[in-house]
């Protein structure tokens, strides 16, 4: 054997052994066949279409978060202008991105502009409003919009992730999807055939606020309030009681509270939240929460000042309860309502994970039952094995000894393909199996190209050794061209495609690269080894 052949053979052997070890002998070295099977199952991850599970695509309504920011700014500017005794007609939101400050006293304009540049320097742009004297339009900057969008998406993804993880499912994934402006999140729940619970937990609001009650009285409707007071005091808001609020009985019907617009404490200030049995009513449950130290420093003095007033616990824009503040409270509180253990548990979970920064919409939902997945695996594997067998038998008959070479190259190709997919943690999907089958086809093609070329060279009168060399050299050019072309198209599929298209592309690219290695490098090495062993004049079995 020539020395360089030895090195080639060694290299090939190392690659094969590594691949086989990685597929079957990792992470625990197997001592029984069952362990080999377990290792293989661990390494080759199946997609949702094969193992069954749910696939949800949801879109975060980022626009809401932007509108929210605009609303908050309107409130803040109003408060500040008032505190500085600036005269103006009104401050109102024009649309999600614009605020109008109408007819401000010209002498006091500098107060407004100072305020904006001090507090909202890179967020809002001020310009004179068209057609209105002494009025100004504030416009949300594109950079600020992008920042809100990014923050909202990150927060939404983290929140959903925490909520889903708390369900205790196996290997759920929550990842952003689509382009920057798609605002989409993909949630995959392997093995979950019914998405009702997951969707309920994802969708739950969980926006908690503690707000001061302005008016000890409550009102049966907004109209009733307006009839008595004609106008809502500045910075106040009317909110209804939640359906399970104790004050709402069948004969009182709707109950509305007058509350401060600005919360003292929000869900973000929570340190923990847990469900507990209600002390007064052991049959029902409540959620106890504690505040972060920073929030507690605010909350303590605030409750001290407001002893005797009521504090509303607002969850998702309705009042859960409005207990009277009996003394200074530093860092703990509770949410009462008609909770079962489950609903209290879910609320505590949602509070711990934090509120979603904006509501979500479901764009896509796919659920594959385990029986269909099992069917697909069976069909896919059967078809792959059968077609592989047919191809191999044909190659052995048609090319005799050289056919054995091709069969070996095909098997190696599959082993390398699976090992590389396992290495990168790629997931085997149904279209992925199709990609494997196409890889088999391309592998056969490479072998056929080489062998036909060698036959041609032999027909043209070359010796066996020269024919093998020329055959591989000439066919190599073609193989590179065909493979690169397919890889180019597969790369586009991988980058721009989603779901099944991407799975297919990944398998195909890996298979093609493995194929160049096996059908050219390995196959040629075997031929060369064979040639050194055989008689120079003997005929090649091809």
């Amino acid at each position, binding site marked *: 054997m020539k020395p360089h052949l030895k090195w080639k053979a060694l290299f090939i052997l190392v690659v094969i052994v590594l691949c086989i070890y990685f597929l079957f002998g990792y992470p625990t070295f197997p001592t029984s066949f069952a362990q080999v099977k377990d290792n293989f199952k661990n390494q080759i991850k199946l997609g949702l*279409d094969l193992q*069954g599970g749910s696939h949800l*695509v949801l879109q975060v309504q980022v626009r809401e978060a932007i509108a929210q920011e605009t609303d908050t700014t309107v409130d803040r500017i109003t408060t500040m202008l008032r505190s500085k005794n600036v005269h103006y007609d009104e401050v109102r939101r024009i649309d999600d991105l614009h605020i109008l400050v109408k007819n401000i006293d010209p002498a006091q304009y500098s107060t407004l502009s100072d305020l904006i540049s001090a507090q909202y320097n890179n967020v809002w742009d001020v310009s004179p409003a068209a057609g209105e004297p002494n009025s100004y339009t504030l416009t949300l900057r594109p950079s600020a919009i992008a920042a809100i969008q990014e923050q909202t998406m990150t927060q939404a993804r983290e929140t959903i992730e925490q909520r889903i993880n708390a369900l205790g499912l196996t290997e759920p994934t929550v990842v952003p999807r689509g382009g920057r402006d798609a605002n989409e999140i993909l949630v995959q729940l392997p093995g979950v*055939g019914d998405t009702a619970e997951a969707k309920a937990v994802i969708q739950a609001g969980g926006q908690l606020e503690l707000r001061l009650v302005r008016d000890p009285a409550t009102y049966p409707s907004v109209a009733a309030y307006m009839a008595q007071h004609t106008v809502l005091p500045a910075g106040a808001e009317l909110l209804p009681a939640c359906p399970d609020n104790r004050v709402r009985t069948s004969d009182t019907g709707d109950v509305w509270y007058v509350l401060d617009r600005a919360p003292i404490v929000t869900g973000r200030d929570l340190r923990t939240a847990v469900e507990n049995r209600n002390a007064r009513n052991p049959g029902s449950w409540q959620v106890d929460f504690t505040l972060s130290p920073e929030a507690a420093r605010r909350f303590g003095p605030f409750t001290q000042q407001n002893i005797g007033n009521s504090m509303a616990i607002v969850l998702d824009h309705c009042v859960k309860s409005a207990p009277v503040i009996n003394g200074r409270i530093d860092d703990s509180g509770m949410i009462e309502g008609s909770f079962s253990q489950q609903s209290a548990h879910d609320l505590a979970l949602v509070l711990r994970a934090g509120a979603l920064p904006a509501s979500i919409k*479901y*764009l*896509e*939902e*796919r*659920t*594959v*039952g*385990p*029986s*269909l997945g099992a*069917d*697909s695996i*069976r*069909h*896919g594997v*059967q*078809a792959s094995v*059968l*077609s592989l067998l*047919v*191809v191999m038998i044909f190659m052995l008959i*048609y090319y005799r000894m050289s056919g054995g070479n091709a069969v070996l190259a095909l098997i190696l190709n599959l082993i390398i393909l699976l090992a590389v997919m396992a290495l990168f943690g790629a997931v085997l999907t*149904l279209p992925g199996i*199709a990609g494997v*089958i*196409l890889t088999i*086809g391309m592998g*056969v*093609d490479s072998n*056929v*190209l080489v062998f*036909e070329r060698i036959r*041609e060279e032999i027909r043209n009168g070359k010796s066996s050794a020269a024919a093998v060399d020329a055959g591989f050299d000439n066919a*190599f*050019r*073609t193989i590179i*061209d*065909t493979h*690169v*072309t*397919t890889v*180019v*198209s*597969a*790369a*586009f*599929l991988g980058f*721009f*495609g989603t*779901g*099944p*298209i991407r799975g*297919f592309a990944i398998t*195909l690219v890996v298979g093609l690269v493995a194929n160049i290695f096996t059908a050219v490098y390995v196959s040629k090495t075997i031929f060369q080894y064979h040639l050194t062993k055989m008689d120079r004049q003997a005929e090649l079995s*091809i």
Partner: protein
Amino acid sequence: MIELFKQPNLDWMGKAKYFYALSGILLLAGWTSILFGRGIKYGIDFSGGANVDVRFANPPNLDKLRSGLSAQGIGNSEIQPIRDIGSSSNSEVLIFVESKGQDENVARAKVLDALNATYGVGSSGKPDFNFATPSSLAAVLTEKDPLFLSVNAGDRYRQLAKAILDYRDTNANGIVTNFDDLGKVPGVTPAVLSVIKSSFSQGPFAIRKTEVVGPKVGAELRKQAVLVTLYALGGMLVYIAFRFEWVYGAAAVLAVFHDVLITLGFFSLLRFEISLTVIAALLTLVGYSMNDTIVIFDRIRENNRLLRREPFDVVVNKSINQTLSRTILTSGLTFLTVLVLFLMGGQVLRAFSFALVVGIIVGTYSSFGIAAPIVVAWNRWRGHGVVAGSGPAAGNKNRGSENVTARLAPAGRR
């Protein structure tokens, strides 16, 4: 040695007009059906809507199912029986509700309601075994404790529940029609069986798959699929133009475009559904057809240098003839592979493999029937068809715009 062809010597380019005619007929037939007939049938990925795949224990009465759906106000939904080739049972149906302004999630809920109302388990109040999940079954077993376990009971029952449901899903196709069958699962004792019998009922159907796709997603996916295909074609055009000459790239891309159009025509004629997976198949066929074309082009490039005195169409004929046995062998074997997939791959892969079955035949044919004749026609039109030394290198030298010979030579010498 076994050989398919001994030195074939066919005049392929002389038959180019027949090839054009054949392609013309196929394109006309398919696209008449697409444009003026029933058109392309889009699957849920592209049309949006709700899909529910149900397997019944016994072949369902479709009229009864239809009236059940009508009672929920979705009588216009499509009911498609799913049949496996090789098995005569037709107890699986796909119910498809198009999203026409209604919420797809609501549509799906309505389908499930209709199924429950039509085939419901009745008033026994027991949960349906076919809908049991590993955790719900384990909970029941742990509570009833038929094996009188005290230590680790939860773990043992969880494993047992998983084994039982694995049996249901893999061996019984998702539907258990006789609880006694579960006795075959290792670990299931008569006591376990009687607990299952007393706590569960046997529903007559199981949901195999549900899909809900919003209409906006559908439109987006459709746009994306078209774009991705065009990008892929563009990428290949550039690569071939770089390796050969631009007319080769154009001819190859035209040929695969022709393949995709014809395959789409067959989809419309035979009412197969276009889904995302089918797009993957169309792209496979693009790659495959391109592969075939490049093998022939490669040979033309090589022969063009060796046979400088021959007219270009003779060179092309010779190249096709020389690669003919490879073409037939590879196509034949690949065709066999996808045929196996088509026959045995199950319903999920049916449309996918159909695209490949058609595509491989058309793709192989287009390499010599469309791509090569276009290059020959181009050369003839340029007036180099009959002059010695024609072909890619010479053709480009005359244009003088770029030096292709320099690029071709190193590749050829390898």
